[in-house]
Each structure stands twice: as structure tokens, then as C-alpha cells.
């Protein structure tokens, strides 16, 4: 059981890094609390595999510290970190039975057979592996093998954390959700720190209580799936999470708010005040396709755009519209009227996010900051 702390951690594959671009991991402070279910989510090349290798001990960071329960482990090899890993491809001993696979780490530790038997039975129970215990591993299906891989990690009492690296890649699509459910149950039962690395938003959001979104060697948001959806704290999170992602529009400051072309978007006094303090920042506003409000007709100060395209996805539609030269996507429910040509819309204030240099501008000065130290 362990809390994993990354303390002023950075990593460069270059011996003499000359600038931020030479870093695969830019300096970060981050805590994975003991017993949490976490995901590390990002596109290929964002640095998540490098970070995973640093946590597991395959790679020693060039700067900063990795701490397990306060103890620096930078130089400890993987086998001394008591970390279990589950990879994309299941790692099992094909010639052994499922029982012997599960028993392997325990026998290595010199446990007596009575203990081994009771531990293996306990884990087999949890993973529904009982009917397979005496089968040879090579005769198992991919999902069964992956459960055996997980079981080998869980069977040891001294495991401080389990790291998953895209563990469902080779699993049949219709079986994936069952394994996802199993993972959640295991987490609830075992209270072990788990970190799940993936590029897939569904894998991450389903498994994790909190997700660290990585982009360009940095964690740009650490939040619940709901927070990533409702309040992306970086434009990349807005873009990357959701299908389609957030609408992002380049804007400049103006009296009472921000503008693009001839369209003015008024903002609250608090937000205007925050923006006044950031005169040089590049500004964007963001709103998700789910949150743009479409009116039945002209209404008060609704904005007026033009319908460009409607994509019918069966039980909902994605409307693409042009507003003052800017393309926007809006999600329409099945029974919602579909506008023809002209479309009247507004951006509800609670869902309109403002970004300065790609980071969310919080309206309330005393809003709780993301503490990641």
C-alpha cells in the first residue's frame, strides 16, 4: 500500500537539455494517494509511458524525486518497489496451470502450500477464475489470460500499487465492459493504489475516480471525469475529452467582455476583472456542443448563425453552424427541432469557459486551485 509522490520531477532523454522542448516530462509535482483509482490519459507522444516507466522503476528520472510513502525510490529497481504491472499483452506462463500461475509469486516468497492454497483460492474467487484453475494457461482466451495477469499482481500482500498499461487492448470489444467492471470491483475490495495508463477517454473515465490528463510532457488537469467534461482547465482537455470536443474560439478583450469578428460575448464583472490583469494573454472561449442553447426562433439577445451541416447519428444529431465566420458544433437531442438555414443560439454563462494562454480563467478569485503539490 503506498502513496506515490512525484516531487519536482522532470525527465529529459538528452544529457544536456537546453530548453523545455528537450523534456519528455516537464517539471511536475503530483500525488497519487494511497488507495486511489487513477488514470493517466493522453495522446501518443504526450509522455505518459515515460512517466509510467519512471514510477515502475524501469527509468530513473533525470531530475526530482519519486517517493513511495515519503521514501525516495529513484534508484530502486522495479522488483524492489513492490509494484505489480499489467501490460497490453497478458503475461502468463503458458505451460503452467492457472493455479500455478497465481501461486508463482507466493511460492517465490517461500510461503507454505497451505497459505498458497488459501490465497490463490481467494483471488480466483474474486476474478471468477475458479472453473479454470486447473486448465493450462495457453488454452485460455485473451480476457481470461489478462485476468490471470491481474491475479498474479493481486495475490501478493506486499503489493504497494498496480500499474495498468492499456490492459484491454487485446480484449474482444463485447467483453471489455465486463473486465472494466471487474477492475472497479477489485479496486473497491482491495484498497490498492491503481494507476491506469491509456489514450482512450472511455477506459480512463470508466476506471478512475480522478484522471490526470497529460499533454506535452505536463499534467494539464487532474480531476474527476465530470470535472474534465464540465470544466476543462486547459483547452487541450476541452478538445481531447468528448466527441466532438469543445468548441474553441479565438477572442480579444472588449468593453464588458470578449469579442470575435463582430460578435460580442459579455462576461461577468469578476471574469472581466481577472482578464484585466492579463493584458498580454492570448484568449479563447470554449463551450461544449452539449451546452450551446438553441432557440426555436429569434429571441432577445440570442446570436444568429447559419446552419452548415446536420449529421444524423440515429438518436441524436450534430449540427454544424457558422457564427460570424466561426464554425461551431451543437448536439441536438432526438426530439429537438432541427433549425433550417438560420439558427438562434446562446452560450449559457455557466458553460462558457474563458482561457488565457490555454489555461482556464476561474471567475471566483477564491476558487479552489488545483493543488498538486
Amino acid at each position, binding site marked *: 500500500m503506498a502513496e506515490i509522490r512525484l516531487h519536482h520531477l522532470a525527465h529529459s532523454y538528452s544529457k544536456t537539455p537546453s530548453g523545455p522542448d528537450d523534456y519528455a516530462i516537464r517539471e511536475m509535482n503530483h500525488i497519487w494517494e494511497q488507495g486511489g483509482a487513477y488514470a493517466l490519459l493522453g495522446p501518443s507522444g504526450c509522455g505518459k509511458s515515460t512517466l509510467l516507466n519512471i514510477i515502475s522503476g524501469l527509468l530513473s528520472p533525470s531530475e526530482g524525486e519519486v517517493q513511495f510513502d515519503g521514501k525516495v525510490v529513484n534508484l530502486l529497481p522495479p522488483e524492489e518497489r513492490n509494484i505489480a504491472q499489467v501490460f497490453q499483452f497478458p503475461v502468463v506462463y503458458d505451460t503452467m496451470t492457472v493455479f500455478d500461475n497465481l501461486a508463482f509469486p507466493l511460492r517465490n516468497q517461500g510461503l507454505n502450500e497451505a497459505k498458497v492454497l488459501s490465497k490463490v483460492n481467494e483471488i480466483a474467487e474474486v476474478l471468477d477464475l475458479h472453473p479454470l484453475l486447473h486448465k493450462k494457461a495457453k488454452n485460455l482466451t485473451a480476457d481470461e489470460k489478462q485476468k490471470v495477469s491481474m491475479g498474479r499482481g493481486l495475490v501478493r500482500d506486499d503489493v504497494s500499487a498496480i500499474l495498468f498499461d492499456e490492459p484491454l487492448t487485446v480484449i474482444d*470489444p463485447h467483453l471489455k465492459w465486463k473486465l472494466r467492471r471487474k477492475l472497479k470491483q477489485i479496486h473497491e475490495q482491495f484498497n490498492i493504489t491503481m494507476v491506469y495508463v491509456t489514450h482512450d477517454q472511455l477506459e480512463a*473515465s470508466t476506471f478512475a475516480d480522478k484522471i490526470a490528463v497529460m499533454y506535452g510532457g505536463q499534467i494539464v488537469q487532474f480531476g474527476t471525469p465530470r470535472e*474534465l467534461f464540465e470544466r476543462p482547465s486547459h483547452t487541450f482537455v476541452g*478538445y481531447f475529452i468528448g466527441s466532438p470536443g469543445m468548441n474553441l474560439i479565438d477572442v480579444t478583450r472588449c468593453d464588458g467582455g470578449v469579442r470575435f469578428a463582430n460578435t460580442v460575448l459579455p462576461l461577468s464583472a469578476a471574469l472581466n476583472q481577472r482578464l484585466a490583469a492579463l493584458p498580454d494573454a492570448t484568449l479563447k472561449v470554449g463551450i461544449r456542443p452539449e451546452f450551446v442553447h438553441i432557440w426555436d426562433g429569434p429571441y432577445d439577445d440570442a446570436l444568429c448563425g447559419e446552419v452548415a451541416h446536420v*449529421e444524423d447519428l*440515429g438518436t441524436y444529431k450534430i449540427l454544424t453552424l457558422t457564427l460570424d465566420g466561426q464554425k461551431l458544433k451543437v448536439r441536438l437531442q432526438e426530439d429537438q427541432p432541427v433549425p433550417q438555414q438560420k439558427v438562434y443560439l446562446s452560450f449559457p454563462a455557466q458553460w462558457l469557459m474563458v482561457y488565457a494562454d490555454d489555461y482556464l480563467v476561474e471567475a471566483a478569485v477564491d476558487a479552489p486551485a488545483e493543488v498538486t503539490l
Partner: protein
Amino acid sequence: MSLVLEHVTRVVDGELHIDDACLSFEPGSFNVLLGRTLSGKTSLMRLMAGLDKPNSGRILMNGADMTNVPVRKRNVSMVYQQFINYPTLTVFENIASPLRQAGLKDAEIAEKVHATAKMLRIDALLKRHPLELSGGQQQRTAMARALVKDASLILFDEPLVNLDYKLREELRQEMRELFQARHTIAIYATTEPNEALALGGTTTILHEGRVVQSGKTADVYHRPQQVLAAELFSEPPINLMPGRISGTEVSFAEAVHFPLNPDLQSIGEGEYRFGVRPSHIGLVPSNDDDLELAVTVELAEISGSETFLHVRNEQFVLVLHLPGVHEYDVDTSILIYIPTHKLFVFAADGRLIQAPSRRVGRVA
């Protein structure tokens, strides 16, 4: 150009790969082949391309029998799952290669390559080599090569499957736009129902080498002629419950009873299978005829902006598709609401008896 398949059958080593396929595709159309892995999508495309010959049946192009004409003489392009490019050639030469083969003049080649590359937004990369490109750019290069030669038939075999979902979103939209102004027949194979919906055009559902249903995408989706079509063209799969209509009531699995509503009155007594789309089940009552069920949550799968909620009770295993993020712990008890006017009704043998009447969106 039109493409017609007449009773096309292909058997390999005694195994039936394509079973009596009858299909026709209009000039300038975009057509999706939808089916699970090994359902016959690739086999069918190879027959269309002329890479394989049918054991029986005919393939007609513009009315002419092409069954025995080899692929080289058919003016067909194909784009595969794996990004296939010539690694030693630049992007320009990769795209130009079919034109060079056809003996076009350099000026004409340059013009066509630039126009196609621009359309696919790789015009800035023409001097690079494929391995210096991202996966999405490599696949765009392969697509440009398929598009540049003005083939009468272009076959796409799951071209986006190896790309991440953000790229897929983008390329899917581009594909649709690319084909709007062409006379080419495009055939696009996918395992994903949502991709078929997004691409529009027509959809042909394949299962175990057989054509289950073929037609305009929206028609096939909204009026699946068999329960199998409904199951295959729905992600997550449509919820099915065995039930009975007797007298003035409907019962599901002998356990849940509700009064027969006007939509179901004309069907008649008997045993049926009732279907409800995952996106039609709600967490709050929204109609007078909602059927309330107490269930426990098996898992909330969250896709970022949507939630797939797997639930069950003693009789049913169901899945809900909800917009937005809904976080639930495993084994939480909740109530769900099934609008009974949105039920599909299938006969015991799988035939469609009734599809819910669509609420057409009002025009603003």
C-alpha cells in the same frame, strides 16, 4: 458508373464466405458495409475489386459483366487498415504513382497531385517520406493515392481503425465532404455502427457472409427488418426483452406488466421480443407511458461526454446510453424509465412487427 452484384457466392475450402449476395450501388454514392469481424466485409470487397472470383453469380459495372475481368483492368482503388505507402518515395511520388503508371504527362500529374493533397490537407508534406509522418498523415497519403486516379470504384477496408478517435472524427467528416462532388462509388467497411451513421449514404449489414439488410442508412437504422439487424446496427446493442401481449396488457418476462398503449394495440395477442434503444431509456420519467424498473448498476462506462450505464435486475440485463457524465458506484440501486411508445416489436422468428413511429423534428 453503377455496380451490381447478382447472387454472388464465394466458397473457400468448403467454407461459405459470401452467401448469395444481391446488391446494387448507384453512381456517386457513399456506401457502408457494416458487420463484425469475419462477417464477410473484406471478402465482399475483394470480389467487387476483382481480386477474387465468385464461385457463382455475376458482377456488373454499368451493365457490363465484369465477373471475369481482373483487377488491373477495372479502374478500382483500395485503401486498407494498415497505411500502405512506398517508404522510399516522397509523399508526392506516392500519390503520383498510379498516374505515372497510367502514363500521364508531368504537368498533369503535378496538378492532380497538388489538388488531391490539398483536399486531404497534406499539401505541405509533399516532399517528406511516409515514415516521417504521423499515422493520420500516412493514412491521408494512402487515401490521396486512391483518390487521385479518378477510379470508378473506391474500396475502403476499415481505413480509420488504427487511428486515435480524435483523428477518426476529423477524417470521417472529410471523407463525407470528399465524396459529395464525385461520380465514384465509394464502399466503406466498418465494424462500428456509429461510423456507419456518421458517414450516411447507404448501409449494408453483413453477418456470417449473408446480407442481413441493405438500404438508406437512416431507414436501415430506424426500421431494422429483423432483430439481428437491430442488434448489429446499434452501439451499445439494442436492449431486448421477451414478452407477451394478452388482453389489454403487455408483460415482460412474466414479471413486469403494463397496460397496452395505442402504439401497440394493433399488433394482436401473442409472444414477441420487445426492443428498446439504449438512448431511449432515461433516469427520470418523461412520458405518461413510461415503464419504471428498479435495477442495480453493474457499471457506468464514461466516454468523456457520454455514459453507458449497464444495469440489471432479476429478469433483465439492460444498457442505457446517456448524454453527459453520470458517475455511479458499482451495485448502486436506481430507477430507470422505459418509454413504451418507443418499443420495437419483433416476432418470435425475429421479423420486425413494428418500429416506433419517429417523432420528426419540428422545423423552427
